[in-house]
C-alpha cells in the first residue's frame, strides 16, 4: 500500500463515519420538521435528547475530511472548492444555522413559540446541508468538472457541473438515507412504545424513498455521470457489491418490519457504509472525475508519511474518547429498550 492509497482509504473511512454520525443528526432535523400527531412534541424531545451530547463530535469528521483533502490532495481540494463554490456556500450556511439553532433552542426562553421558531430553523438547515453535500458528491462524480492536467487550471464553469438533474437526485438520495438512519437509530433511543412505533413507520417510509431515489440516480447517471454509470454496470466487483447492498437494504426493511430494532440498526449501518464505499469505489482512482486522480493530486510522500503518523497518534486518543462518549450516552438507551418486554 502506498501512502497515497492509505490516505485515500482514511478519507473514505472518515466519510463513512461522518455519514453514520452526522448524517443521522441531519436526519433528526428532518423528523423534527415532520413531527406530528399525538406524540409530536415527545418526538421532538427524543430527537433533541439523542443529538445533544454527540452532534458536535460527529461534526468534526467533516473538518477532518476537509483538512485531509487539502493537506494530502490539494489539487482536488482547490478544484472542488472552486467549481462548487455555490453549493458549498449554501451547505455552510446550512451548517451554521443548524448548529446555532439547535444550541439556541436549548438555551433560549422556555416559551413554546420561541422554541418552535428555533426548531423550524434547525430543521430546514438540517435538510439543506445533506442535500447540498449530495449535490457536491454528484457533481464530483458527474465528470463535468474539467481540469487541464498540464496546467491544473479549471476549464469548466462554476454552474453546469452541479446545476443538473443527477447531482440533485444524489442530494435527495443523501437526504433520504440520513432520514432513514436517524429514524432507525431513534427506535432505540426511547422506551416509549408509541414513539417507537412512530419512528419505525418513519424509518420504513424513508427506506423506501431511499430505494426509489437510488434507482432514479442510477438511471440519471447514464447521461449525468456516464463514467460512474459505466463503472457500476461493467466492473467485475460491481454486480456482487450492488447485490450485497440491495440485500442488506432489504434485510434492514425486514428487521424494521418485524420490530427487531437492534438488528435493523446494524443493517442500516451496514447499508450506509456500503453505499458510501460504493461511491468511493465507483470513481476510484479518480478524486474528481475524470481529470484529477489520487496519483496526480497527491502531496509529496514526505508529507503523506508524516500525516499518517500524526493520524495514528491522534487515533490513539480519539477512538477511546469517542467510545466513552457513545457508551455514556447511547449504551443505556439500547439496553433499556432491549430489556423491555
Amino acid at each position, binding site marked *: 500500500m502506498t501512502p497515497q492509497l492509505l490516505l485515500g482509504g482514511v478519507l473514505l473511512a472518515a466519510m463513512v463515519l461522518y455519514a453514520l454520525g452526522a448524517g443521522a443528526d441531519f436526519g433528526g432535523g428532518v423528523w423534527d420538521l415532520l413531527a406530528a400527531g399525538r406524540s409530536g412534541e415527545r418526538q421532538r424531545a427524543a430527537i433533541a435528547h439523542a443529538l*445533544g*451530547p*454527540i452532534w*458536535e*463530535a460527529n*461534526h*468534526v469528521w*467533516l*473538518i*477532518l475530511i*476537509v*483538512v485531509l483533502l*487539502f*493537506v*494530502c490532495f*490539494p*489539487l482536488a*481540494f*482547490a*478544484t*472542488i*472548492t*472552486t467549481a462548487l*463554490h455555490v453549493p*458549498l*456556500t449554501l451547505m*455552510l*450556511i446550512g*451548517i*451554521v*444555522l*443548524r*448548529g*446555532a439553532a*439547535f*444550541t*439556541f433552542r*436549548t*438555551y*433560549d*426562553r422556555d416559551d413554546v413559540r420561541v422554541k418552535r421558531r428555533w426548531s423550524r430553523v434547525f430543521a430546514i438547515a438540517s435538510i439543506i446541508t445533506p442535500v447540498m453535500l449530495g449535490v457536491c458528491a454528484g457533481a464530483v462524480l458527474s465528470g463535468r468538472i474539467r481540469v487541464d492536467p498540464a496546467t*491544473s487550471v479549471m476549464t469548466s464553469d*462554476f454552474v453546469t457541473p452541479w446545476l443538473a438533474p443527477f447531482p440533485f437526485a444524489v442530494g435527495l438520495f443523501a437526504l433520504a438515507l440520513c432520514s432513514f438512519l436517524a429514524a432507525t437509530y431513534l427506535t432505540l433511543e426511547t422506551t416509549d412504545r408509541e414513539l417507537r412505533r412512530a419512528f419505525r413507520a418513519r424509518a420504513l417510509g424513508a427506506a423506501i424513498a431511499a430505494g426509489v431515489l437510488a434507482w432514479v440516480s442510477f438511471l440519471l447517471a447514464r447521461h449525468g455521470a456516464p463514467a460512474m454509470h459505466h463503472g457500476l454496470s461493467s466492473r467485475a466487483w460491481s454486480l456482487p457489491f450492488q447485490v450485497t447492498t440491495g440485500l442488506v437494504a432489504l434485510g434492514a426493511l425486514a428487521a424494521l418490519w418485524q420490530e427487531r430494532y437492534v438488528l435493523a440498526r446494524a443493517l442500516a449501518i451496514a447499508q450506509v457504509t456500503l453505499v458510501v464505499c460504493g461511491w468511493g469505489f465507483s470513481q476510484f482512482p479518480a478524486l474528481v472525475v475524470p481529470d484529477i486522480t489520487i496519483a496526480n493530486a497527491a*502531496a*509529496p510522500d*514526505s*508529507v503523506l508519511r*508524516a*500525516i499518517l503518523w*500524526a*493520524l495514528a497518534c*491522534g487515533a490513539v*486518543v*480519539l477512538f477511546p*474518547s*469517542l467510545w*466513552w*462518549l457513545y457508551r*455514556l*450516552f447511547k449504551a443505556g438507551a439500547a439496553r433499556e429498550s432491549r430489556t423491555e418486554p
Partner: protein
Amino acid sequence: MTNLLAARLDMAVSLAFHIVFAAAGIAMPLLMVVSEWLWLRTRDPVYLELTKRWLRGTAILFAVGAVSGTVLSFELGLLWPRFMRWAGPVIGMPFSLEGFAFFLEAIFIGIYIYGWDRVRPLTHWLAGVVIAVSGCVSGIFVVCANAWMNTPAGFRMAGGEAVDIRPFAAMLNPAAFQQVLHMTIAAYLAIAFAAAGIHAWALRRDPGNAFHRRALAIVLGIAAVCAPLQLVSGDVSARQVGHAQPVKLAALEGQWRTERGAPLRIGGIPDERTETTRHAIEIPGMLSWLVHGDRNAELKGLDQVPHADRPPVTITHLAFQLMVASGTAMLVVALLGAFLWWRRRALPVSRWYLGLVVLASPLGLVAIEAGWTVTEVGRQPWIVYGIMRTRDAVTPMPGIAVPLVVIAALYLLLAGVVLTLLRRQVFASPGMAAARRGARR
C-alpha cells in the same frame, strides 16, 4: 468592489467573528475548571451555580465557534484556492493535529454538559480539564499555521511548486513561538476582562451578591497574572517582527525612512501622501533600542521596499496603537485591582473600581481584533510573506461580494442572538438563597 477586495473582506469578517468564540473556547473552560474545583473543595453551592452558569455560556459560545470555524476551513479553498493548492501540504501538519484537538474538545464538552449525573464528580472535573487543555492546544496549532504565512519555512519553491517539504519545520517556523505565546495569553486576558466586566456590572447593581463576588475574584486573579505577561510577550513579538518582517514593523510603527536612533511613536497619524507620521509623541532612540537593544542602531523604514510591496500603513499603525493602548489600560486596571486587594485584604468592590472594570471589559477583545489586523494587514501585499501575493491567490470565481454580504448578515444576526442569550443565562443575578447567605457569612 473588486473580487480581491471582496474576498479579503469576506476572510476578515469570518475571522474577526470566529476569533471571539475561539478566545472563549480557549479561556472559558479554564474558568469553569477553577470554579468546579472550588466547588469540589468547599462544597459551597455558589461555586456549583457559577460553574453551571459559565458552562451554559461556554456551550453557546462553543457551538457558534465550531460552526464559524467550519466556515473558515472551507473558505481557505473557497477564497484562496491557488494558495491552498501548493501551501496545503506545507501547513497541513498543524491543521491535522488541530483536528484531533477539536475532536477531544467536542467529545468532552458533550460529556461535561450532559454528564453531571452519569460520571463521578472527579471524573467530571477531569473532563473539564481535557476541554481546557484541548481548547488551548487547538489555538496553538492554528496560530502556528498563521505564523507560517508570516515567516514561511520548511520547504523550497521550484517552478511554482513547494518541494523538499518538512512538515514539522514548517509548523515550528521562526514566528510560531512568539505568536502562539502572545495569542494564548491574549485569549485568557480578553475573556477574563470580559467576564470581569459582566460580574462587576452586576455587583454595582446588587452589591452583596456572593455569586458575582466569587466570580469576580476568580477572573480578576487570572487577569492580574495575564496582563503583565502580555506586555512582555508583546515586546517579544515586536522584536521578532523587527527581524523577520522589517516592512511590517516599519508600517506598525509609522517609520517611513530608514534611520539611526529611530524614535518610538505613541499615537500619531501616518500620512501616505507626504510619507510622514504626524502628531505622534516621540521618544527618541527608543524604537531602535527596543528592537536592536542599541539606541543608535539603524532601523529599516518603509523606504527599503518599492511602493508596490508596502502594506496599508495607516490601518496597520492605528491598529497597533489601539492594541498597545488597550493592553496598557488593562494592565493599569489589573495592577490597581491587585494593589487594592493586597492593601485591604479583600476583593476590591468599591463602586468606582467596579466601574473601571466595566469600562475596561471590552478592551481585551478589542486588542485581539486590532492585533490580528496588524498581523494580517501588515503582511500585505503578501499572503505568504515574500513568496506569494494575495492577488495571485484569490479564486477565479466571480461575484464574491455576494457571499460576503450573506456571511456578514448571518454573523450579525448570530451575534445579536448570542448576546441576548448570554444576558439571560449568565449575566442575570441568581436569586439563590445560598448566594445571599454566602454574602452574610
